[in-house]
């Protein structure tokens, strides 16, 4: 029982980061039908900014807003340079464009920094834990969960209570109709990329605090987790993306602690394989989005 509760808390902490990443991917999928394989690059760029800033003696307190600004700016630049040019293209083109962006960004760091791992110092409290009864809880997980909840509440308010949120949801439901109703596609799409960058920035702060290092291809892992979580939740559903993120985090923690010794190192592989099986039985994800094709 205690172990299960412990897993639950660990899983929530891990899942929070995935949920933020998945939400950012779902927001863009909603307005552009683009599954963004370049989402992890926001964390790669933030990672190298962290290496530089911490090396220059900046404190983590100042680095946090810097990472978030970097992430939003990178997201907007990528939209401007690449994705704005393929708006309305078919899914095949969109997928490969984001794949191409991933490679160009990581290749730039390969070219101008190096292929090797760059380390930076993590804040001291990341490894601290405290106990409630027999539970061992990381300070880090606690912060992550609280910040994530606040972010999700904020995002919900943004989507429900503001004109931008309404425009975004309308565009996600039916982009063409939304445009006919006066929604400006440019500003909605840029807003979506900014929001996606903001969410990735918050996730990135935690991701980098935990990792303490970066490489040119560091974006692959967060991208994959975010994409899978968004898909598990049901592509196109924002609520589903968040649910999918938590589900993925829990699945990872549960498997890692339950798999027998030999298989524990294969946790990631087993999780991906389970996800593939999950899709066979529920191809639309947890919250299936009804899409009827007009005949």
């Amino acid at each position, binding site marked *: 029982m205690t172990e299960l509760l412990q897993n639950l808390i660990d899983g929530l902490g891990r899942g929070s980061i995935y949920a933020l990443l998945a939400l950012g991917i779902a927001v863009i999928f909603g307005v552009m039908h683009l599954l963004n394989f370049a989402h992890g690059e926001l964390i790669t760029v933030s990672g190298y900014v962290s290496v530089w800033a911490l090396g220059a003696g900046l404190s983590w307190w100042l680095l946090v807003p810097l990472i978030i600004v970097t992430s939003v700016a990178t997201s907007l630049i990528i939209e401007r340079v690449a994705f704005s040019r393929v708006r309305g293209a078919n899914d095949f083109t969109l997928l490969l*464009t984001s794949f191409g*962006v991933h490679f160009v960004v990581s290749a730039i760091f390969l070219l101008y920094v190096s*292929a090797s791992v760059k380390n930076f110092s993590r804040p001291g409290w990341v490894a601290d834990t405290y106990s409630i009864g027999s539970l061992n809880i990381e300070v880090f997980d606690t912060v992550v969960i609280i910040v994530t909840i606040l972010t999700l509440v904020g995002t919900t308010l943004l989507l429900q209570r503001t004109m931008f949120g309404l425009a975004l949801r309308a565009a996600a439901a039916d982009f063409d109709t939304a445009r006919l109703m006066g929604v400006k596609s440019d500003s909605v799409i840029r807003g979506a990329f900014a929001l996606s960058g903001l969410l990735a920035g918050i996730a990135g702060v935690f991701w980098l605090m935990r990792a303490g290092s970066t490489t040119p291809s560091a974006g692959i892992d967060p991208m994959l987790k975010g994409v899978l979580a968004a898909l598990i939740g049901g592509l196109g559903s924002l609520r589903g993306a968040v649910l999918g993120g938590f589900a993925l985090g829990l699945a990872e923690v549960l498997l890692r602690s339950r798999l027998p010794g030999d298989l524990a190192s294969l946790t*990631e592989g087993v999780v991906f394989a389970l996800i593939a099986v999950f*899709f066979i039985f529920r191809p639309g994800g947890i919250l299936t989005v009804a899409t009827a094709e007009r*005949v």
Partner: protein
Amino acid sequence: MFQRPGRDIVAPFLGSTVLFALLLGSGLLYQAAVGGGASERLVTIMLIDAIIVVGIQVYIGNTGVLSFGHIGFGAIAGYAFAVLAISPGEKAKRIADAPFGLVDVDMSPWLALLLAVLITLVAAAIIGVGLARSGAESGAVAATVITLALLFVSHEVARNWPDLTGGDRAGLSFKIGESLDSRIPILLALFGAILIARLYATSRSGRLAVAAREDNLAAQAMGVNPLVQQMVALLISVAIVSVGASLRVYETGSILPDNFFFSYTLLTLVMLIVGGRNSVTGALLGVVMMTVGREATRRLGQDGFELFGIGLDDAPLDWIFRENLQTVFLGVSMLLFMIWRPKGILDDWELDAWAHQRFVAVDAEKPGPLPELGEAPAAQLEARDVSVRFGGFQALTAAHLDASSGEIVGIIGPNGAGKTTLVNVLTGMVAPTEGSFAISGERLTGKPPFQLARAGLVRTFQNLRLFGSLTVRENVEIAALVARDHRAERTLRDVDALVAEAGLWDHRDRRARELDYGTSRRLELARAAALSPSFMLLDEPTSGMSDAESLAMVEQVRHMAATVGAGVVVIDHDLGFITGISDRITVLDQGSVIATGTPEEVQADPRVQAAYLGSAAESTTVNAPANAQQGIDDV
């Protein structure tokens, strides 16, 4: 398996030979010009890459599904091959604890290659089921993520199961001298890969897969089961990739997890899309272009301008000529092509198809007119008490319909009356909430669209669904291919004759998406007739046509149906068209049948006048005042 031996077997064989010769020739030319072991190796690697890229083309090109997983299949094949083919002595050094007694396995590399292909095919079959379940169709996002997950699973397993794979750092290596020392096997495999890829594309399965790539729903409505064709394409594709991957391992003499991961996926995908993913010729062109570009940028990155003897050591371009420049080159190539030419340089241009078209098929003779079938095989379509509810909306309430072969039945009603919903039920695209339908007593309710099409219910679409990049002739040919297997007991008409009969002869080699509206409608009709259906269900065949065109369409529908002995169910809201064409008419209003009978009877029916025509009884065209329910009607 093949329709026309000249076009589908001989031409691809000759074309493949030419492509193979060109690829090998360009490699040998480069080798002769540059010389040295490095150039020889570069060409060998290019030939192996070509095998793998052609293999990937078979799947991505013919199905339109973007796969990141083929290099994952390559990893499976590569490791299977290495574990089986490396000598026991060598394995004992790296993976002494390998499971299943694999350390002691000692077999010839060719047997190992065969087993590696078989093992990978098993994995492909499993993934194929997942892809099918996820609703794989052209551009399907979920399918792509499944393939991406496969790539990661294979990589994770390779890294974290050192007992089998030698792990992340050491990997597996052949003993020096054990590895491949001749190019002959690579050349054989390459020629085989090109030939198989071309023959698959011209085969029945390949053509049906391409139809589904162009329009999945329309393909199903023509009796194609896309999932079967996609599975065939996947297995052939993975078999070729497995051979290429095994040869790659054999040639390099070693394998590491990162050899078959993201960067190789990028390389092979860029090669595929630059030349044109829908064409084998394009895939090979891309292989050559990207090999050249990659080698050039790699050298520029290493040596700067010195390569060309210009010697600008401190050139202002220093900032760009840095190591790993080739990775930037590949990523940027991918982006630029996606932005400016997503279908690649050649799109779907194919050397052998072009040559055949240009030099052999030029003087085809226009076939004579088709006779109408006097005695059509009798068939009876009966729909009983069909009700459909969408959430809270009742689209159809206990509707019924009867039609016999040789007869034209019109269904008329305003927008939102449920006309299209009825056609959707009869072709399996909407499941009825209640009720059933049958042809000549055979109950068909609940069957998928492609089975209903094979059973003889073929439809056209209100908003036109042709196979856009296929030619007019090829559009009709798809239906004829299905007819030969599933409608053989009926009179099947020649493709060319049907094309001519529909007035499309002069357009026969144009792509369907280039046709004007009226011509497209006629093509849909010809395509439906080619299936030799028992009943053709025509959904507003004259929508968007002028009065003169509509009038011509009446005669065309009647004649085309008669040449294949099909009954016709035609829906429209144009009263003039319906009364002009129909033997009997069913009137629908708000989901219910309110009258049936001959055109005269229906027009005289007071309920029809009151409920449907309203005060506009004298008008010939009826439009519902509001389109509030159109969305539901259209689905």
